[in-house]
């Protein structure tokens, strides 16, 4: 007999670390898109940063340096995307996809070179143990036994939300995406705001990739099998969350749950009554929910008015 209560707890507990990389990347994408720039390269940026973070942590034995290196790689890719789309005005969708291919292959290439002589792997960061709280039933393992990077991702989401909706900075960002011309007339440098948002957003995607390695897996694999769709999911989450970092927490968690459930059910024989291979359906469920959700709420789901439209001063 399977204890369904225990099973649910373990799925929920496993879901948060899987939510974390998606959430970091989704927050970054919210910032970029709010300012008017779509970055479809997130998946590749995460993958490159994951490799860079792994490499750095492996050779320096420092999680902090690893995270910083991952962020730096994301930042560099963000600069490239900002140059192509904000400065040059190249089609954002296409440039982003090229960024995906470029970043992914650079990370993979680096890994192939290094792994000829070295087996790159690290011990992922430990989960915290809070006396009393971590030992509570249900909430203990789910909420109070995660690692710092998981908690940080939630904090970053809240901070990003506060910046976006409660500061003049946030107002400038939203204005750049909603009405760049009026923003410009108000004396705000639209393309500077956009560049900063793209770069910071990409750095957050980098943090997402780094957190996947340092906070969860401890290794890398080529051919986009490591990030394995988290970056694309982040883009989906942004729309699902209607461009709000707060709602992105819920959106990212939904997909984290899907991953966690699928990971358990795919290997489980208990559920074979559903037919072999049906575990893959669990991976599809969050996507189906997302589609249904957007059909139901399509009137309220409107992207920033000038998303994907380059701004050129007259």
């Amino acid at each position, binding site marked *: 007999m399977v204890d369904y209560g225990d099973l649910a707890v373990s799925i929920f507990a496993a879901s948060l670390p899987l939510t974390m990389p998606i959430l970091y990347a989704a927050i970054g994408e919210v910032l970029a898109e709010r300012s008017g720039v*779509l970055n*479809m390269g997130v998946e590749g940026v995460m993958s490159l940063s994951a490799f860079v973070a792994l490499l750095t942590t492996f050779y320096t034995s420092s999680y902090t340096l690893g995270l910083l290196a991952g962020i730096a790689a994301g930042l560099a890719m963000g600069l490239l995307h900002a*140059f*192509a789309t904000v400065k*040059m*005005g*190249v*089609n954002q*969708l*296409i*440039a982003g*996809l*090229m*960024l*995906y*291919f*470029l970043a*992914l*292959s*650079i990370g*993979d*290439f680096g890994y*192939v*070179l290094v792994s000829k002589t070295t087996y790159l792997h690290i011990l992922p960061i430990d989960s915290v143990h809070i006396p009393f709280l971590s030992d509570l039933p249900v909430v203990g393992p789910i909420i109070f036994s995660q690692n710092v990077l998981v908690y940080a991702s939630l904090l970053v989401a809240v901070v990003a939300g506060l910046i976006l909706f409660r500061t003049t900075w946030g107002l400038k960002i939203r204005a750049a995406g909603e009405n760049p011309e009026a923003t410009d007339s108000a004396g705000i440098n639209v393309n500077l705001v956009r560049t900063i948002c793209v770069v910071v957003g990409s750095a957050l995607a980098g943090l997402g990739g780094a957190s996947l390695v340092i906070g969860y897996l401890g290794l890398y694999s*080529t051919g986009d099998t490591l990030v394995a*769709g988290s970056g*694309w999911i982040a*883009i*989906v989450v942004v*729309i699902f969350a209607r461009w709000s970092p707060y709602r992105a927490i819920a959106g990212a968690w939904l997909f984290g749950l899907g991953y966690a459930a699928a990971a358990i059910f795919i290997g489980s024989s208990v559920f074979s009554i559903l*037919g*072999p*291979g*049906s575990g*893959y*359906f669990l*991976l*599809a469920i969050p*996507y*189906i929910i*997302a*589609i249904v959700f*957007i*059909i139901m709420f*399509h009137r309220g*789901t409107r*992207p920033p008015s000038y998303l994907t439209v380059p701004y050129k001063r007259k």
Partner: protein
Amino acid sequence: MAQQVSLGRYFSYLVALVVSLVLFSIALLALGYDPIASLVGLVSGSFGTVFRTTQTLFLVGPLLLAALAFLVPFRARFYNIGVEGQLYIGALFGYIVAAQMGGVPGIVAIPLVLIAAMVGGTVWIALPLFMRIKLQVNEIFPTLVMNFIAVDIVNWVTAGPLKDPLTGNLQTAPLPQSTWLPSIINNTELNLGFVIALAAAFVVFFVLFRTVLGFEIRASGASPRAAKNGGVDVTRSILAVGLMSGALAGLAGMIVVTGLNHVLAQNFSPGYGYQGIAVAALGTFNPLGSVVASTLYAALSVGGDSLQRSAAAVPIQLTYALQALIVLSVLIVQKWLKDREERRR
């Protein structure tokens, strides 16, 4: 004036190619590889022998069809990034029909299978198309999401209901031989799929540039409002490009299944749907330009593969980076030239 523009276009390719190759060579040099030998290896690895040439030309098929599937709707400003999912579902529909074709001669079976694949592709674009036309939901999101659902469905059937019990691989049983696309050169990968893709490129070119529908499609993309004022039914254009796109994507998946693998396997597409977008951009969203672009792209993939296995052993990922770099630089240089021209006026 027109001539200047097209000269500028060739110039942009030259600049982009030189910039990308220089960066590629610097990376090779820095890592201790021989850049000249590697570049020669790329060329000889893709067109050096008859076998390699046929491998390259086979790969042109799915890349070109995927590029067409992206560029047709792109012309009407419908961004279908769901080609990957549509090619999976197209291949699934095609497989289901093909599996029933034991004993049916190829001349009957193959067209039926291809039609089924086209239907599958259009089925998979139907929902995003509906959402765009009826609910005014931007298509980028639904088409992207549908990719993952499609891959999950194919993952499921190849692990469950359609799995070949005789193998440990996650794939279906082999298709009846009559449904295999006939080879153009015996015992090579070059088969009817390549011809189908080329023919599709010419048909798409004809439709886009020589028919009223094509004019309406391009007008809808250039300026939806002006097109509407000019009496063009923009909705009809979008419906037309959506259906054409799904059909082309389905074909792209099918010619890989019936032309190369002869089974439906998990993850049989290494991202043709996404690579097609790169090819379409490289071919300036023109069907005939995409023929050239897909050949270059395929040559780099096949050449990069043999370079990896040659004595130089340059990992293929560096060639992948080169592909992306070429497309990105072409886009940037083209934009730069266009802006300069506009400023001069």
